[in-house]
């Protein structure tokens, strides 16, 4: 298998592996794709045939409703799929947990020339709501570097969850309403789980609750079925004033629902929360750098642990710089892949997906 055949291309639709005619997390509709996890920016394209973990497919269906035109092609965590290359050889596709959120997977491709791993959105470690992400030894790695700057150094997840729960408890004791701004899929479920485990009442924005229900259907108990996790908008005025944590997506930060709530104390829960401007922008009272992505040190350690001789890096505002820093830290060739985006999206600090 020649090296050329296993080249990776940046196409307008997204990253592309010509050897097996497979797009990786494409932004536009394509014939065949691997979707690493269910966040909208990765599962947005739709495809004729979609390879993904069973959980990811279930979460995508829950997000979109059942109207998806794609043909799901689940890969079991202990299974594999074989694809033919143009030269007639076989490539074996399997999955490894990527941390990040429930169902998030790294795509492991074993071919005659070695092993290629597409990490998707990745974080080392796990929590009660998703599997543990860990480096997979490989020859070539695609690494997502959203937080590829040394200012991004996150405290341990356990410590952060403890701090967040403690902060919510203090706010409630002070007669205030703790509002956690967190991405509706993944982050919110981790927070809901931690708060519920600590016995704090939790109310959720509709989008958050919908995703909690989807997690619950996949076996992660989050109090939706038994009514412990309440839908905020369905509560009457008096119930809204009862003590409890409000879980809601970052985009609602300046929404009247929150701004009118006099007792609200708002915390942004995001890797960007370590930056003051991100808190200012959301007019947040506090910030917790709990992220579903790898921080700078995790990125370097992960790339090193895989032993990859070539690392492609994607995402991140300062990709070229990160490629240089990573190249200096490990003995590998590092190639930045700058996305040829057709649809520009604004990067809003604190809205990580």
């Amino acid at each position, binding site marked *: 298998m020649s090296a050329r055949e296993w080249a990776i291309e940046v196409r307008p639709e997204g990253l592309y592996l010509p050897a097996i005619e497979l797009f990786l997390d494409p932004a536009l509709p394509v014939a065949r794709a691997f979707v690493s996890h269910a966040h909208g920016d990765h599962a947005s394209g739709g495809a004729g045939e979609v390879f993904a973990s069973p959980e990811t497919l279930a979460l995508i269906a829950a997000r979109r409703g059942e109207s998806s035109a794609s043909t799901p092609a689940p890969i079991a965590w202990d299974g594999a799929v074989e694809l033919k290359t143009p030269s007639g050889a076989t490539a074996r596709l399997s999955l490894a947990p990527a941390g990040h959120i429930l169902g998030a997977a790294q795509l492991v491709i074993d071919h005659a020339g070695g092993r290629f791993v597409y990490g998707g959105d990745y974080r080392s470690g796990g929590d009660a709501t998703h599997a543990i992400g860990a480096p997979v030894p490989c020859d070539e790695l695609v690494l997502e570097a959203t937080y590829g*700057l040394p200012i991004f*150094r996150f405290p341990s997840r356990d410590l952060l969850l403890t701090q967040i729960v403690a902060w919510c408890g203090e706010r409630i004791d002070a007669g205030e309403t703790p509002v956690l701004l967190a991405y509706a899929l993944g982050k919110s479920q981790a927070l809901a789980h931690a708060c519920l485990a600590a016995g704090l009442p939790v109310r959720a924005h509709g989008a958050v609750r919908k995703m909690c229900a989807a997690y619950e259907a996949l076996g992660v108990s989050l109090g939706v079925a038994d009514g412990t996790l309440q839908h905020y908008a369905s509560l009457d005025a008096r119930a809204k004033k009862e003590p409890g944590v409000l879980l809601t997506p970052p985009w609602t930060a300046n929404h009247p629902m929150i701004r009118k709530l006099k007792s609200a104390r708002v915390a942004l829960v995001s890797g960007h929360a*370590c*930056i003051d401007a991100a808190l200012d922008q959301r007019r947040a009272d*506090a910030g917790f750098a709990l992220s579903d992505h790898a921080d700078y040190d995790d990125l370097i350690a992960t790339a090193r642990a895989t032993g990859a001789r070539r690392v492609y890096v994607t995402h991140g*505002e300062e990709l070229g*710089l990160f490629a*240089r820093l990573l190249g200096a830290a490990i003995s590998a060739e590092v190639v930045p892949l700058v996305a040829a985006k057709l649809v*520009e999206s604004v*990067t809003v600090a604190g809205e990580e997906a």
Partner: protein
Amino acid sequence: MIRLSRALERTKSSRGRLDKERALADAFALIGRDSLDEDSAGSLRVAVRLATGAVTASAPIGVGFSLMQEVIIAETGWDSEVVRACSRTCGDMAEAFGLLMQRVRGADRRSGVSLSDVARTFELLAQASSRAHKRRHLDELFHRATPLEAKYLAKVILGSLRTGALEGVVENAIARAFAQPLEEVRRAATLVTDPGELAVLARDGRLAEASMSIGAPVAFMLATPIETVATTLSPAQWTVEDKYDGVRAQLHLHDGEAIVFARGLERVTETFPEVARAAAERGRGRTFAIDGELLAVGEGDKPRPFMALQQRLGRKAPTAATLAATPVAFIAYDLLAIDGKILLEFPLADRRALLAELTDALDCPEIRLSPSTPLLDALDPLDPLETDALSEPTPELDVAEVARRLDGAFAAARGRGHEGLVLKRNDAPYEAGRRGQSWLKVKRAFATLDVVITAAEEGHGRRAGVLSDYTFAVWRDEGDARALVNVGKAYSGLTDVEIDDMTRRLTALTLGRYGGARLVRPEIVLEVAFDGLQRSKRHKSGFALRFPRIVRIRTDKTAEQADDVATVEKLFASQVGAGHREEGEAKTRGRGRRGMTEKGETTRQLGLFGEEK
């Protein structure tokens, strides 16, 4: 410094004003009442000054972004590209410093620097003449600082401390910390403008002793802007002066030393040596404090526009050539103290009389008395059409009549090359720091234009991550087609909600990115107000607007309906005709430089962090 840094970090994450005040008050009380600190008054003084973003009581320390970047590189071990990228991401170099410092081995276990260390270092920095010396003092300071201290020290040094520690908050915090009535703190604050000194007075229960001292600036009395008179005012009680297009300043002479304070109460003596020299030489043996305006003057003592004065701003020790090319005069319009006597409580009429005596005695072109006319006189002669109708001005002119005549007086002031008028009550005391009803300024936007947004950039700090800076254009005929040519850029005027909305719309309209700017499809029309026009090579239209600000988003207009260059030219011709602007080209100002800018406020010019060379 640790206690102060923690308090500042708390003010950052407490949105409510009350929370900010509490956080600062707690820190001030702890620092000011620390029995283990031999010089707790000194520490308190420094802490409060730092909290307001002031570096020292007087002299600037002359440390800019490039020197600070060197220090960060040395202290953290990351190279300049990393430091710049991190600063860009944070929107603040100081914050990036604090975050990078967290990775420095052992930095979080440092015992930190004391407030007196900080004060001493800042004094040394102010005195240090060479960059190498400054660098050494900075290295010594930051090598002992904790990450959080580094962040806030760097913020103070770079002028980016905007944790909401605004003066009002600090005054409230002082009152709260030492259980003093807020009214007394506020009153004292207008006379003792050093917040550190104010805090010590409050701590010691000596606020009543606060008084103005010659040689230390008092807060400027401010005029309330009006478009025209809306309520009845008795013309006999008022005088009227031209509103100058210069830099508000105080000129003090004390112990033979003349000091010029600009609008932000910072010392700018060296920037205006001819004024200081005249005061010291002509006023030998006397003491005084005059309030007035620094103005560029041209041939025949004619006032020159603000643009001319800008050649002198932000420059220490101007060259002889600059002094000759752009002579400046101090136009005196109020007297705060003379020969040891404080005049703040005297009525304006008395202060003016004493001021006239003083300027007569000084008798020099560098310090002139601002002409002032009783409002009754000003109303008539300036409006010749009215002279027949009213042979005798009566004190009981109705509002509409006064307003109508004021229009004439306003036009006349514009014709003399001034910005507008100021009305002052004869019997009012000098209300330091107040914007009350005793001084009224009649100022009107020069004009407005409907323009089309052609490019947008992200802002900084609070506005990082949203598109808040807009480049805009007007139409120009090019043969049988029309093209958009840029005419300016505006940074303000919209609410956060409007900016969020604009960010969404402009993102959808983005055609391409050039560095930090997005070129957008020209669809959004803004109404932009401004105070004047000048010729400029910076923009393709050949013109630039002075103080452009967004009045509103013209959702009712399409891009095709925006104004054209011909309209701009007509407006320009009208102001040149009135002698209000000089024909000729204004020099393009540098970006990303710190210094005194428009109206003497010390601000950092908008420019991307990391652009500093």
